[in-house]
């Protein structure tokens, strides 16, 4: 039996990669941790928040999070910033230069690549940033390694005075695995900021002398990579193929080819090219297995070694055993097991908005108004692109709705002549990177109708807090931004700032219809909380009176998943044409009693069995 399994049962824990990172950072004496929520990295900060001896925070975006961590490092504290892969794009302006200046307290950036796109708009390989920004990269393959490597990363960061990237993937972040907890927190005292303008004020004159220092650091890190124990070869009995690999792909490889020699790179950048050369000499064929881009492969080939990799393996997605087998077994001339059963042909269950989701009202309105170009953003409301609303036309990056909408307005083509342009953005995304787009649009005299869907949470990642919710990462009261005042300060006329109850469908439709016809920009702010958060108030469920339901199907168009089709009937209408009737019913386990669907039903078939008094006063409120 494996030695690991023999560890004391009490020291063995079932931890996700994210939980392991948090635990390790705490043990390593981290004093400041910052992040913006993003799948699959969100739980790192949620778990760090459990330790009272750390300052942990939701920052408003990833660039801010990294800068907070940099400040803490310069004060001599160990600091961590965590984010999903696309967050690195936002944060890069900060770390690209801090890498040149270096660090004082250990500074690590934990980045989670969503390999396989479980919940992301693209699939990026964050290992590029290590090469681009001259930062070493550690790549854990599971929770145990994440725990060990985060501790190593802090030590390396201080020893080499560099930010260190810990690169995770979804299959490390969200896998729960056994972790042997070995230590306790080691408290570290910060020396305080030591003023040194030549080092910390990155003017051209001060930055220039740092360049050779950074390149010398690269050289030393490359030497370290040759000797560090994180880069280790396991000898295998079958030397026909030797693998070079990093990250969770190692686990898939070990599973699939237990007898093959594997050089596993836990410290994958800078790559240990001499070690790889020695390893290659001991095997017939060298194959690089890396997720996702051929970075190591290209470097190994440039070093003059014959290597295979992306010529046989996919350049995207996870390199799971089911992918490795058919790609590599043919090289060995071996058959591989083909699943005995073919994929079953079952209906999909596409992601959908929740029952009483406050985004349903705005999308009901948008789907009932013609001649709109609807420019979307990142969040649950991206689902508006799907069935039954089909009311979202673009989605690329955090905050892009406002700036893209403005560009589309200014760059109108012929077919857009009569169209109105709407930008849809959520509260948290607006605060992350949307405000600048609004400011820009107002400043440059644009005309966009903005729907600011304020559901008082970061819904997509599970209801985290932001400066608009009135609470912080710890659930403690925090100053709450006033969106109406904020957008007014950015230059929107008070008359064109509306607060609206998204559950009031007729009002919602009227509002969007009117505002999109206006010759000036407006910001329309919804005011109901995400129905999955504690801020949401559950009321008695509604029901459809079967006898009254005429089968018009209007309520189904709202897209509330609590409303379902009870039966269909084809009838012949007066004009002789056949027509399909769709009779509705409400699932009273799912219905939260939000009342939204009631006004879609002309025959008043939707009722609440025991009417309740409910605060329904909020209609459109002009701000100011």
């Amino acid at each position, binding site marked *: *039996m*494996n030695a*690991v*399994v023999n560890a004391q*049962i009490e020291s*063995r824990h*079932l931890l996700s990669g994210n939980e392991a990172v948090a635990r390790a950072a705490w043990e390593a004496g981290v004093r400041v941790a910052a992040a913006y929520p993003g799948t699959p990295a969100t739980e790192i900060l949620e778990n760090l928040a459990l330790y009272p001896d750390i300052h942990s925070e939701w920052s408003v975006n990833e660039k801010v999070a990294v800068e907070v961590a940099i400040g803490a490092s310069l004060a001599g504290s160990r600091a961590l910033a965590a984010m999903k892969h696309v967050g690195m794009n936002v944060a890069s302006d900060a770390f690209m230069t801090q890498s040149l200046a270096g660090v004082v307290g250990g500074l690590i950036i934990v980045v989670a690549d969503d390999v396989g796109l*479980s*919940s992301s708009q693209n699939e990026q390989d964050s290992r590029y940033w290590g090469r681009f920004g001259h930062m070493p990269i550690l790549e854990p393959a*599971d929770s145990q390694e994440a725990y060990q490597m985060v501790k190593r990363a802090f030590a390396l960061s201080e020893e080499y005075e560099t930010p260190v990237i810990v690169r995770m993937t979804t*299959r490390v972040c*969200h*896998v*729960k*695995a*056994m972790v042997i907890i070995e230590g306790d927190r080691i408290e570290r005292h910060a020396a305080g900021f030591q003023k040194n303008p030549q080092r910390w004020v990155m003017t051209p004159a001060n930055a220039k002398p740092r360049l050779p220092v950074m390149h010398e650091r690269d050289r030393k890190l490359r030497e370290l990579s040759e000797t560090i124990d994180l880069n280790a070869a396991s000898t295998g009995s079958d030397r026909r193929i030797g693998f070079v690999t990093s990250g*969770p792909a190692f*686990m*898939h490889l*070990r*599973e*699939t080819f237990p007898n093959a020699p594997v050089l596993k790179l836990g410290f994958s950048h800078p790559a240990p090219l001499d070690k790889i050369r020695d390893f290659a000499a001991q095997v017939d064929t060298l194959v690089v297995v890396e997720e996702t881009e051929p970075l190591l492969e290209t470097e190994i080939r440039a070093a003059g070694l014959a290597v295979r990799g992306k010529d046989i393996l996919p350049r995207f997605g996870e390199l*799971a*055993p*089911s992918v490795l087998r058919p790609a590599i077994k043919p090289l060995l001339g071996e058959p591989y*097991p083909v*699943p*005995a*059963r*073919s*994929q*079953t042909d*079952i*209906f*999909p*269950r*596409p*992601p*959908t908005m*929740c*029952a009483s989701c406050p985004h349903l009202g705005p999308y009901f309105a948008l789907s009932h108004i013609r001649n709109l170009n609807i420019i979307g953003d990142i969040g649950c409301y991206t*689902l508006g692109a799907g*069935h*039954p609303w089909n009311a979202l036309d673009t989605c690329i990056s955090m905050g892009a709705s406002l700036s893209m909408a403005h560009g589309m307005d200014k760059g109108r083509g012929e077919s857009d002549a009569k169209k109105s342009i709407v930008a849809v953005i959520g509260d948290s995304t607006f605060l992350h990177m949307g405000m600048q787009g609004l400011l820009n649009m107002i400043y440059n005299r644009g005309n966009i109708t903005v729907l600011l869907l304020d559901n008082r949470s970061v819904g*997509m990642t*599970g209801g985290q807090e932001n400066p608009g919710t009135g609470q912080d990462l710890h659930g403690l009261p925090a100053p709450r931004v006033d969106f109406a005042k904020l957008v007014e300060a950015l230059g929107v006329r008070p008359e064109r700032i509306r607060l609206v109850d998204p559950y009031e469908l007729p009002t919602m439709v009227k509002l969007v219809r009117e505002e999109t016809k206006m010759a000036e920009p407006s910001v329309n702010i919804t005011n109901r909380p995400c129905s*999955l958060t504690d801020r949401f108030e559950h009321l008695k469920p509604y029901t459809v009176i079967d006898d009254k339901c005429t089968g018009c199907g209007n309520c*189904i168009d709202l*897209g509330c*998943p609590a409303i*379902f*089709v009870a039966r*269909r009937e084809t009838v012949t209408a007066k004009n002789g044409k056949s027509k399909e009737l*769709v009779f509705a019913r409400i699932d009273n386990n799912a219905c939260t009693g939000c009342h939204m669907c009631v006004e879609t039903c002309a025959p008043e078939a939707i009722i609440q069995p025991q009417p309740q008094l409910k605060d329904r006063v909020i209609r459109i409120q002009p701000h100011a």
Partner: protein
Amino acid sequence: MPESVLNILVVGIGGQGVMTAAEMLARTALSQGYDVKKTEVAGMAQRGGVVSSHVRFGPKVYSPQINPGEADLLIGFEVAESLRWLPYLRLTGVAMVNTLRIAPPVVSVGLYDYPADPIGELAAAGIEVHAFDAGAIAGELGNLKLVNTIMLGAISDHLPFPAEILKANIVEGFRAYKPKLADINAQAFDAGREAGHVKTLSDRPAANA
């Protein structure tokens, strides 16, 4: 301890407690000295989407993922979902299936069909199927949330450790955090265990898998 790794696939729909059940299996295996890995495939949907949780344990586990054709046990919280994941089950695998049917909006609006006889299809695939209405048992016990414990009870006699150990872990968990629910969960576990003993026989000619 068995030499090989046991692969359990727990499947259902977001919000049904699939991940909680998988977590309970993983924790119990860990407490029995196994190396354990558990991984989920859950898309963007917080509710209503397809959820599958892979639990693997044995002397040493590398990859957290179960490959098609390699699951030893399938625990299905919904029938169509059980059928969806059938290709992941070994030809000799065991499927423990809750007969609950949940049609998503794309089915209820008529874009797709719900399979007519999913249990029949499972049974005809030559695997060992145990199908029963966990919701009805939970209803009799007075709490629909018991489905989770009922399903764990049902699978408990197919695990490499005694059913009593899994039961004790579940009940202790409730005793620590929700003591009022401890006894009823113990009952639910036993009722599930009982229901899980009944095999569903195929009334169709053996299909060539």
